[in-house]
């Protein structure tokens, strides 16, 4: 059974149709891409899947469970995590705290433990600390653990965002324009990172990107959106040759 199934996803913002009849079968372990011109509705699809908006119409099943109408934190707890187009770290918190807070759903101790700092509290906090430092170490961020997140250079902040998403122990990771603002060298590193985390954490990854290099080289399958509608779907090679895609990005004459 596919890890994530989306059927007939449609969403209106008032009178504006943002997404129309979006369908997807996402198998476990896949690495797929979502592309399209600006304003095509790509981030909206992510927002719908994560529960930020409740879709006007359509069905989203994750791991067999119907997740439409669930609150975002519940969906995250089920195993979907994401990064954002514009970095949304908790800037004034340390990198370590960013990772800790994301493990909210995994915390087992109760309120009384938190209020009174019982031994159970300490045992679990140490566990969380261990896990967080380990995760940061895996992503080469351990040196920055106690830095304020907003003080880090842009590229590192993006990596912290990915680390934070990973801290929620997801099965499906949504990356929203992870390469935005990166130079070619950084993009190369990002490519390797994405491949690596997929294998290391047994993830299914879904990427929104504008950088063709990234999409074409790592995605196994790509969907193309334009004005909310899916205009093409296929392998990178197929997409690159697709006249409708070229038209959507570059206009009539070039096609």
């Amino acid at each position, binding site marked *: 059974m596919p890890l994530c199934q989306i059927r007939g996803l449609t969403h209106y913002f008032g009178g504006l149709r943002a997404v129309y009849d979006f369908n997807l079968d996402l198998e476990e372990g896949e690495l797929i891409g979502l592309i399209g011109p600006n304003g095509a509705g790509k981030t909206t699809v992510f927002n719908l899947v*994560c529960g*930020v908006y409740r879709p006007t119409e359509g069905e989203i099943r994750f791991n067999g469970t119907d997740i439409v109408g669930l*609150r*975002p*934190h519940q969906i*995250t*707890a089920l195993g979907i*995590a*994401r990064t*954002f187009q514009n970095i*949304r*770290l*908790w*800037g*004034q*918190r*340390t990198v*370590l*705290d960013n990772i*800790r*807070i*994301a*493990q*909210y*759903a*995994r*915390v087992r*101790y109760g*309120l009384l433990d*938190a*209020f*009174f*700092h019982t*031994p159970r*509290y*300490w045992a679990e*906090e*140490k566990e*969380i*600390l*261990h896990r967080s430092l380990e995760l940061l170490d895996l992503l080469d961020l351990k040196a920055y653990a*106690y830095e304020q997140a907003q003080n880090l250079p842009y590229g590192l902040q993006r990596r912290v965002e990915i680390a*934070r*998403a990973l*801290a*929620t122990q997801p099965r499906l990771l949504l990356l929203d324009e992870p390469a935005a603002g990166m130079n070619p060298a950084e993009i190369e590193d990002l490519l390797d990172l994405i491949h690596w985390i997929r294998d290391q954490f047994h993830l299914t990854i879904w990427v929104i990107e504008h950088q063709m290099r990234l999409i074409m080289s790592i995605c196994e399958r790509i969907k193309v959106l334009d004005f909310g509608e899916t205009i093409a779907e296929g392998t990178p090679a197929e997409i690159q040759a697709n006249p409708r895609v070229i038209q959507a990005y570059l206009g009539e004459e070039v096609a």
Partner: protein
Amino acid sequence: MLRKHSRALIIALLFLIVVIPSWGGIYDDYIQLILFYIGINVIMATSLNLINGYMGEFSCGHAGFMAVGAYVTSVITVILFAGHPNLGPARLSPQWSVFVFPIALVAGGIAAAVAGLLVAIPSFRTRGDYLAIITLAVNYIVKSAIENMEIIGGPRGFVGMGKVVNGMQQVLNIPWVLIWTFIGALVTIFLIRNFVSSTRGKSVIAIREDEIAAELMSVDTRRTKVVAFMLSSGLAGIAGGLFAHGPGGYINPGTFTILKSTEAMVMVYMGGMGSITGSIMSAIIFTILLELLRPLKVFKWVVIPLLLILLMLFRPEGLMGNRELTDIFPRLRALFPPSDVGLPPQESREVLEYAPVSD
């Protein structure tokens, strides 16, 4: 060794400074009154800081929760131990008041915590300015509701707490209410500090910095808001219960207006949003300032707003900003057991080596 016992030492030291001289009569009634108000203000400021500081909301109605606690606690103690023209004679003999008083305080706190839901639930859908109005309205509704309850005195107020305190002192002549206030302040600081340093509690700050990101990173923002609001208003309720049993043994709804809420807000912003040390310091400073300015009579309430305006212009982050004393003097951390696992390890003292007393 110092680390393990430093907390107890500090409490003992404070006990020595605050309670013993009051007990022994070295401090006269006036100083005891000041200490009493400092304690109350510490509770009010620290509990409000959780909402206005850590969670970044703008709650203007803290006095409403104080009122709930004040009245609930007082009605319980007065019904049981003092008797009241509307409520009947005392039911138990005064000796039991010593044991019942803390229970009544907690009951007042719980009632106030439940009242906190009135603000917590709307906060799911609204934030910022709109929530500010709701807190204002709740403050006013509480005051107005009390005024309409003739059975507890309505706008004329409620009396009898003096008899209750006398009853307690018949059992043992110590400054009971001052001691309970002292304990209350310590408990407040303890609970809030523990809560915000936990991973669970940091969700409060995450909500302030980016609520949507928090929600998407598995934080149950609704639950967090409920916990924060209830804890904050519950503690305010306890402050209210203590306040009601202060000298005078009398409360009336006119005390718990937006002006009282403003006092709490002044303390929070003066101390620094998100700094417990700041709230404590500004509670002390504010209480003393009010007393020092007493000769100015009405003009003290000109000086205080002016001070805060100047503060906003020149140091808006307040005394401490969002730092604690241990952030300014990191060496002090060596004195205390770590509360937050997320703080940088001190040289060789890895926090992972810290073992709580009974592991």
